[in-house]
């Protein structure tokens, strides 16, 4: 298993390099000069030239690329053009808020999604099944901004029982609405997938055998059926975790949540090259690490899986 993990980590290098190169090229060739944006609507050519020189934008692209790779190898993601802050420090500062939001959203989504999926499968074609799947379809279809605004209108501005926007003092009350907003779609996806996987498994022969052995329905469902249905569910949870951790742009914007998603969007608008590159590398790493963890978790769920 150790060699598998090491091999996977070695694979990270060409993937990250590829991502870095593509992002570097894309960001550089898109029209729009970051120095010009820093200068504002009006500026004299001398000042513009000096800002470009300070930022290293006057160098040939190949030299900019080599310099960028050199800095990256030394662990330096650069300094933001926009606010002069170190990119790595800024990302870490914002990642705390995103992690907190994503963690609780995934807990909520997993608990609700898995429970609803199992119960729907066990009580197939019941009122509960129809209701749960209707809500799940609505949850998948409803745009995040709409869910967020609706929750705000009801709970923050209508009933006034929860705070509206912001991180507040870190209190859990500020967390509820963004977590529900962010967790709704993954919960719906997990519920639908869990139900369909459970139904597949419940029709297998070994389930019939388990029942015929006289095992209780609870043991049959949770120990025999759910464990076998878990691999695809595990995969979708892993994918969702990676997506949420890499920044929930809309949720963070609606709730003025100071996370990585908002940071990235503002960097894109301002043509803040170092911050864009840093954010993308950060997101790529999150996806790679999450996928690795998901791969490793298969072995725990299904002992037949080996990492040789």
């Amino acid at each position, binding site marked *: 298993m150790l060699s598998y993990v090491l091999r996977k980590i070695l694979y990270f290098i060409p993937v990250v390099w590829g991502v870095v190169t593509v992002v570097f090229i894309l960001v550089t060739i898109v029209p*729009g000069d970051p120095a010009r944006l820093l*200068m*504002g*609507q009006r500026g*004299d050519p001398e000042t513009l030239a000096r800002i470009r020189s300070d930022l290293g934008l006057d160098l040939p692209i190949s030299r900019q690329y080599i310099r960028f790779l050199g800095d990256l190898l030394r662990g330096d993601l650069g300094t933001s053009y926009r606010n002069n802050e170190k990119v790595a420090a800024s990302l870490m500062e914002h990642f705390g808020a995103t992690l907190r939001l994503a963690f609780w959203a995934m807990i909520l989504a997993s608990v609700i999604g898995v429970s609803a999926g199992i119960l729907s499968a066990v009580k197939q074609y019941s009122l509960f099944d129809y209701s749960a799947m209707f809500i799940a379809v609505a949850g998948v279809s409803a745009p995040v901004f709409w869910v967020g605004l609706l929750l705000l209108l009801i709970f923050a501005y209508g009933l006034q029982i929860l705070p509206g926007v*912001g991180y507040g003092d870190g209190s859990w009350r500020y967390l509820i609405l963004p977590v529900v907003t962010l967790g709704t779609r993954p919960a719906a996806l997990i519920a639908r997938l869990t139900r369909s996987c459970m139904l597949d498994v419940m029709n297998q022969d070994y389930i019939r055998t388990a029942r015929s052995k006289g095992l209780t329905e609870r043991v049959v469902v949770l120990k025999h059926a759910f464990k076998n249905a878990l691999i695809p569910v595990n995969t979708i949870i892993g994918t969702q975790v990676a997506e949420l951790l890499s920044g929930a742009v809309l949720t963070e914007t609606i709730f003025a949540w*100071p996370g990585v998603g908002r940071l990235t969007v503002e960097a894109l608008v301002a*043509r803040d090259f170092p911050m864009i590159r840093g954010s993308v590398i950060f997101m790529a790493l999150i996806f790679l690490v999450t996928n690795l963890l998901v791969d490793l978790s298969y072995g725990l769920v299904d002992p037949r899986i080996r990492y040789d």
Partner: protein
Amino acid sequence: MRKTLRPLRYCLVIALFVLGACIAGAEEPRSGGVLRWREISDPPRLDPATASDSVSNRNLYLMFDTLVENDIDGKGLLPRLAESWEGSEEGRVWTFRLRKGARFHATNRGSPTGNGGREVRAADWKYSFERLVKVGSPRAYFIDMVKGYRDFTDGKTSEWSGIRVIDDHTLQFELEYSFAPFVSILAYPCFAVVPREDAEKAGVNFNFGPVGSGPFLLDHWEHDQKVVYKRNPDYWRRDDGGRPLPYLDGVEIIVIPDNTIAYGEFRKGNIDVLPDVPDEFYTDVKERFGNLFQERPLLGVYYIGFNYAKPPFKDNRTLRKALNYAVDRKAMSDFLLEGRYAPAPGVLPPGMPGYDPDLKGYDFDPGLARKMLAEAGAAEGFSVELNIDNNPRHRTVAEGLQGLLAEFGIDLRVNVLDWGVHLDLADRGETQMYRMGWIVDYADPDNFLYVLFHSDNFGPKGNYSYYKNEKVDGLLTEARIETDYDRRMALYREAERIIVDDAPWMFLFYYTTSLVGGEHVRNLRLPAFGHYSTPLEIAWIDR
């Protein structure tokens, strides 16, 4: 006797009633409280030397002092840290007498500052101006007429020779040439004073712990959430009754990116001031909040530029004028922009020195537009591209124009671009038509007419239309050095009339600026320079 006294008694009762009402109306300001002000994004820069956007400037006005400041109506200059100033006869030497007793912030983010709260001296001003060049300020060139700028910028000299410290409280600027708007420029927030001790110690990190001498000092900055300021207890300014300013204990700049949420938070009372009321809530705010809503003309103009150097507009003044006559500005403002913008007959907005109330401009005249189109060889219509930046308001205006011009057979193809790309193309003159706006930097017609129309300023310096008229160039150059105010204004008016007649732009609207404050917020005075310069040192909270 009784009869003759009766009217007198009535008069006395009325006088007492009026006096009572006046006393009740003139509320005594209360000290204390924290005012929460909404902003759409985190301020990118809090160092005055490197800031160049309105969100950052909102913050700079709280923390820093300049030598002079703009009158709230934009009609003149007021002393700030300069008590008085005078120019030499030919306008090349300006001497400022500095206020005694103004002190830098003694604390910053809860810790003592390096300067220890000492007095602001003339040497600090020289240091601050030189620092602008050293840190690569994008606005330092505003005062490139100060003697020695080039040599200092190029590193040929170790100091800026045109800035002289006469004594602790006297500062002098020598200009390369006479430049009448010089003092106005010094009200721009980047020309603020900073203490050498703190700026040197912090280096580039001064942006995250700025120290000034303004009414509020930085307490803490939670990125993408809020910037928290506390009252500067040593601030030099007093109100008319001798009470120390500011009244507020603090100000919080709350970052809420989404307009709908920001309005919801304002209505819930979680923010006290909502500046730049969004279009989508404009009517609701006006109806719901009545007198708490403030709106006034902003010293700014909204226009569509024609590329003067490229077909179809090159050497075709008739075509440019025809398009100006083809547009119903009033209807566009009323139907598309809630009537928020006033139709613009020319360049200089009302309230700006040199504004010409008699300037006729282009009234909507479809008949004349058709006739001129025919004269310009475009009777059958033509296709033309308009570049705009990606903003809902600009998209609405562009779609309105599309509809209006289609009536004349003109196929207006709108390219919606990212702001950076839009600027880039406009800089290089790679447009046929482009949308742009211009909001005042300093209250002088030079900031509009010279910047936007002089042929020295092609491209990024402001003249995106690549407009060139030697007569206009001559008038604008002459106006820059003319020291007689009335004569200067006459020169600007003449230049503006020629520009309007040449029609390098489709002159559209004059901007407005707005805000709405909670009913407990008092003395919130909206300046003509925009909501972001609202002086919060005189605001107070009544609760």
